[in-house]
């Protein structure tokens, strides 16, 4: 029944009312002309209501004239009547077609590249690499052979262990697994030297095989020879060996910082202003062109790409720029407070420069020196890092 209703809706049907004394005659005439009448029911003795297909209606008019019935259209339903109703709104129909075509065409291209899984490699670098192999913002989806690009990239880059490009909607998702550099292992039977991998002061040398070329307390630079793979014996003479030794070096790093007890502190006043910007690929439209009304402010940019469902991105981007007002306040620190603040700053800086995680805690010697000069506090921290500095290098 539902199927029949759908077909009737597509073809279009009319609700008619028939009035007359010979309704049976009318029904039989319809039957003999193969006209399908539906939902026949009598409203009263001489008024019949029914549903008829649009194409059968002309015949029904003839029949009603023959059988002397009055016929009246109550309602027109279905797609043909609907189309007819909006026939004059041509631009509306054209616009709908244009939008549909636009959406269809725009979803054939890639409009967004997402990169996940990278730790050390910069996102821009990966994007450049992908662009080189033909995956760009605005490339056609069919023209991309992801498997080929992945293979080429994996061949080219040593530091990428695995790369996968997944195209979902208009979104290209690049997943990367970075490879860890394996230290070069030199076979025990090969002849090698030990060379300093960073400049330091020698603290301790334990030689198991080979001849030490430096003494404790010497300063060495990066690349200097520490232990040579040569042995001199009274009976054997000089012979080349596989040098093996532990060489420890010390590095002294001095960090100093001076700060005043009275300092300006920034506080957000809570006032905000928003500026909107629209980007169509690389074409920008500013909705607001004036300079910010705040004297001091912080800017936060937020980009929103237009997208349908979860993966259909479009090359239209909305940019929201939020300016938050900043107020400067004078703050007086006590000696203890200022000390902890400066120490923390120095520690952070130190950790950023030297990856502490690689060196064991016990091999770092730390010394604090604090001098108070009335209105300023000077903190000086001396770090002594003790670590292995020797690496084996093949002798050719």
């Amino acid at each position, binding site marked *: 029944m539902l199927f029949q209703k759908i077909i009737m809706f597509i073809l279009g049907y009319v609700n008619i009312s028939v009035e007359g004394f010979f*309704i*049976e005659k009318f*029904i*039989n005439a*319809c*039957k*003999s002309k*193969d006209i*399908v*009448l*539906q*939902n*026949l*029911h*009598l409203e*009263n*003795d001489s008024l019949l209501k029914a549903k008829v297909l649009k194409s059968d209606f002309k015949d029904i008019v003839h029949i009603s004239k023959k059988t002397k019935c009055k016929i009246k259209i109550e309602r027109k339903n279905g797609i043909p009547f609907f189309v007819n109703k909006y026939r004059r709104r041509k631009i509306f129909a054209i616009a709908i077609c244009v939008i549909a075509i636009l959406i269809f065409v725009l979803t054939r291209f890639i409009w967004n590249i997402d990169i996940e899984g990278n730790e050390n490699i910069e996102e821009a670098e990966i994007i450049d690499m992908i662009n080189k192999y033909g995956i760009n913002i605005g490339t056609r989806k069919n023209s991309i052979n992801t498997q080929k690009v992945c293979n080429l990239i994996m061949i080219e880059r040593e530091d990428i262990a695995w790369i996968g490009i997944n195209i979902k909607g208009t979104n290209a998702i690049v997943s990367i697994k970075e490879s860890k550099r394996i230290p070069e292992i030199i076979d025990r039977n090969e002849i090698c030297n030990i060379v300093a991998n960073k400049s330091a002061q020698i603290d301790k040398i334990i030689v198991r095989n080979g001849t030490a070329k430096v003494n404790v307390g010497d300063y060495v630079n990066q690349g200097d020879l520490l232990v040579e793979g040569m042995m001199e014996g009274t009976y054997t003479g000089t012979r080349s060996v596989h040098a093996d030794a532990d060489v420890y070096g010390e590095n002294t790093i001095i960090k100093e910082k001076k700060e005043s007890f009275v300092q300006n502190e920034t506080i957000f006043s809570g006032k905000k202003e928003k500026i909107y910007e629209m980007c169509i690929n690389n074409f920008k439209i500013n909705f607001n062109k004036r300079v910010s009304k705040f004297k001091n402010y912080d800017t936060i940019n937020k980009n929103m790409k237009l997208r349908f469902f979860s993966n259909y991105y479009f090359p239209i981007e909305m940019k929201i720029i939020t300016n938050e007002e900043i107020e400067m306040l004078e703050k007086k620190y006590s000696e203890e407070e200022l000390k902890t603040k400066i120490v923390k700053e120095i520690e952070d800086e130190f950790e950023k420069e030297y990856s502490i995680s690689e060196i064991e805690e016990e091999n770092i010697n730390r010394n604090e020196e604090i001098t108070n000069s009335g209105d300023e506090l000077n903190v000086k921290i001396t770090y002594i890092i003790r670590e292995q500095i020797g690496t084996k290098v093949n002798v050719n």
Partner: protein
Amino acid sequence: MRDYIKVSKFLEIPREVLSNIPKITVTGFDEILIENFKGILEYEDFFVRISTTIGNININGFNLKLNQMTDDDILVSGKIENIDFEKRR
């Protein structure tokens, strides 16, 4: 007519398929489906008279509707009180 019946019996084909004998299906007390009907002789709110090749079918009831009418079958629905047949001689 008789030949048709013989053939359909032999081939085990339902009789109403080959000839135009009506098939009447009554569902509950509110629906009657009549296949292979010829025409409607009378139609009132309370009475429907349908002609077939072998005679007439009279249906009495209330609020009778002819729901589905195509060229060879008709669905009468409503509160049906009684059905009777007039065999043509």
